[in-house]
């Protein structure tokens, strides 16, 4: 069993996890921002 | 443990029973109390009126030390909550009665009061039977409170609040669905207590019962005190 793919898998998985987290941060931030702007408009 | 001098300033003129300064309470998005400031003298019977959600119960709970104000201060007989011992000293001076009767349904009135007395460090069971007789019930009755009528439950709850002989009584809807005779009896007891020097706050929708007995009617509107009158304008009361 060739171990090298596991090395790349580990590095890639690390950035997939961080990427997903950053995406959730952005979507949650946009949602809160929109909610705030709606209130200021009202 | 007698209160330390610092906790209770012995002012020359009589210390007001309750002083609220800038009292605000926020429940998430809903502002239950908005910057309430007021003073209530000792030895008076106050009736707290207002529609649902105006903040009556919240104010009473704040005075009873049951909730931490978002900001502002509550001081009772000169002492304040939050101090190391002053909070506990205040609790010794006040009796609280709420809509849920704060009683164990599986226990009889006497058992409930004996347990409650223990919480205040009182072992003397004679006091418990006195308190029960005072509210017109029979101490020997060993039916569990769960089987009492609403009138009897409220009267037992009142007895529980009176047990450690507090100087300040905080009653939240004491008469709600209580038979008229029990209610009238409770009103007479409260006015006798007030004459004996106790300060009493009653949050109620049946203010008519206390039209004669009460010293002051405090109207609460959306989280603040609307007006304080000494005679009740009967049309205003539903």
């Amino acid at each position, binding site marked *: 069993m060739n171990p090298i793919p596991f090395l790349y898998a580990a590095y890639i998985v690390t950035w997939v996890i961080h990427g997903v987290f950053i995406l959730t941060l952005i979507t949650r931030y946009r949602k809160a921002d929109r909610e705030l702007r709606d209130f200021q408009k009202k | *443990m*007698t209160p330390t001098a610092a906790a209770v300033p012995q002012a020359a003129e009589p210390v007001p029973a309750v002083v609220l300064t800038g009292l605000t309470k926020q429940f998430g998005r809903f502002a239950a109390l908005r910057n309430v400031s007021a003073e209530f003298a000792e030895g008076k019977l106050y009736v707290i009126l207002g529609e649902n959600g105006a903040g009556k119960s919240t104010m009473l709970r704040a005075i*009873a*030390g*049951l*909730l*931490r104000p978002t900001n502002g201060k509550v001081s009772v007989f000169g002492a304040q909550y939050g101090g190391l011992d002053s909070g*506990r*000293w205040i*609790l*010794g*001076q*006040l009796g*609280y009665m*709420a809509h*849920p009767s*704060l*009683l*164990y*349904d*599986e*226990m009889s009135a006497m058992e409930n009061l004996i*347990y*409650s007395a*223990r*919480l*205040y*460090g*009182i*072992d003397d069971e004679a*006091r418990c039977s*006195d*308190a029960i*007789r*005072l*509210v*017109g*019930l*029979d101490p*020997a*009755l*060993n*039916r569990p409170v769960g089987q009492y009528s609403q009138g*009897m439950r409220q*009267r037992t709850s009142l007895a*529980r609040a009176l047990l*450690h*002989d507090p100087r300040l009584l905080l009653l939240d809807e004491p008469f709600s669905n209580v*038979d008229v*005779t*029990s209610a*009238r*009896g*409770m009103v*007479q*007891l409260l006015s*006798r207590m007030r004459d*004996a020097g106790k300060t009493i706050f009653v949050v109620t929708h049946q203010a008519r019962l206390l039209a004669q007995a009460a010293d002051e009617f405090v109207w609460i509107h959306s989280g603040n005190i609307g007006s304080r009158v000494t005679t009740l304008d009967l049309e205003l009361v539903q």
Partner: protein
Amino acid sequence: MRAGSVKDGSMSTAPTATTAAMEMRRAPATEKAIAPAPKVLFATLMKDLRLEWRSKDAINSMVFFALLVVVVFSFSFDPTGDDARRIAGGLIWVAFLFAAVVALGQTWAREIRNQVLDAYRVSTAPANDLFLAKALGNFLFVTVLEVVMTPLFVVFYNLRVIGPAYLLPVIAVLGTWALVVNGTFFAAISLRTRSREVMLPLILFPISIPALLGMVEATKIVLTGESSAKFWIVLLAVYDLVFTTVCLTLFETVLDAE
């Protein structure tokens, strides 16, 4: 004894003597307003035990539940001979944990049903006495379950203890307290969350893993007599000490989290 004949409206004609008597007793009460500690703890514990004994429905259903757990475990794992001793420690403690969590979930049930927590908070009684009374009540309750379950385990797995058997009760007491003290505290926390029943095990299990490991390993070592369980027993004792202290320091903050 007179039937519960309540003289209606008697309050208004209550003989002034009683009210006067009530009034005269004003003086002594104010001095003793602050409750000396053990009395409150004892009173609360006795009250709980009396109510438990009076209704007995909680204890009966829990004992039956514990029996079911043992029987189900005995079907799903059917080791014989030496195997039994190796994994019995784990099985017994997981079964105890299962029964304990269900019992711990009921800790505050009576207080919530009667909405009496406010009565306690408004009194001068210290919060830690309420906590210790509840924790001790739970400890007794769970111990009863364990006493019921253990002989069944011995029978179903025909266990014979090779190591020092007198250590087993020590492990049981330390282990049960480790679960109960944190369980009572987390039951108070999960009161204020949406799904109460699922929240308790969810926050109790991760934190109890070291204690669980200690109980299981110590029991296995004593059953198989392989080596000395001293390390695990010391670990459990220190765990109990640390977490009882943490509970006592933080309980009031959680009780008053309004």
